[in-house]
């Protein structure tokens, strides 16, 4: 009876992190981008717990609890921002918020959507 090798757990954590990173880069829906960030945080927590289990120390689990608290705070603020974006632009497309760079950068399509949303 052998225990699970730590390298395999770390490999799994790396795979999950890579999937989350690809999702963050590929998707343009803000909600899916937040979910991808959650996947990446979860993978980082898995790596912490695997390392803590490898040396038999509790520090890895303590760090996972901090990752959990950070994820909760990040998600609450991020989802409030998503609701704000949806109220203002009537879309959850991340590219809709590009007018943060200045009025001249905003694409005409989203400008019209923004004007509609404001007049409602």
């Amino acid at each position, binding site marked *: 009876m052998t225990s*699970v090798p730590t390298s*395999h757990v770390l490999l799994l954590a790396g795979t999950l992190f890579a999937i989350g990173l690809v999702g963050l880069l590929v998707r343009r829906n803000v909600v899916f981008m937040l979910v991808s960030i959650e996947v990446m945080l979860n993978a980082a927590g898995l790596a912490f717990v695997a390392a803590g289990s490898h040396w038999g120390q509790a520090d890895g689990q303590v760090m996972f609890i901090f990752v959990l608290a950070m994820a909760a705070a990040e998600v609450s603020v991020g*989802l409030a921002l998503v609701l704000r974006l949806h109220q203002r632009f009537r879309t959850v497309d991340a590219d809709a918020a590009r007018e943060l760079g200045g009025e001249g950068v905003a694409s005409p399509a989203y400008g019209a959507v923004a004007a509609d949303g404001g007049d409602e």
Partner: protein
Amino acid sequence: MNVMFYVAAVVAVACTVRVVTHVNGVHALLYFVVSLFAVATIFYLIGAPFVAALELIVYAGAIMVLFIFVVMLLNRGPQSVAQERSWLNPRAWVGPTALSLVLAVEVGILLFAGDLELETQTRVAPKEVGITLLGPYLLAVEIASMLLLAGLVGAYHLGREGGREGGREGAHREPGAGR
């Protein structure tokens, strides 16, 4: 026990790929919950039972509820009825259910047969975690509490209706039509 780890790992990776590639928000969240279940099983297998419980309660419980609320809020209007009908499609829940069943079988094996095998795995008990958390890491706990307070205040400020930006929109909306 090694085999159970690899089965749970395959379930986790498959679910996470579906999370990233799915077009429907609620279906993707369903897959993400199963992925969190799989990771919680892995936590238990590598000797961290306390963190496995936290993963289920905080991630799969609290944070997923937030996501589902927001996805539901974003899907208002007449097309939501057709969407609701499409959500009851068996094709939507067969995948997550099958993957959850794999994990349920694993948990059953762990409960009824795996107790002796688990003793060889180094296990970090919740008591040890608590002593470490409130001992050397006490300052970090305080910082985390301040972070959570900042998140609470920020989410409240961004989410309320009568903000500086939202006041214009909120004033013309009849009461009851808003959120």
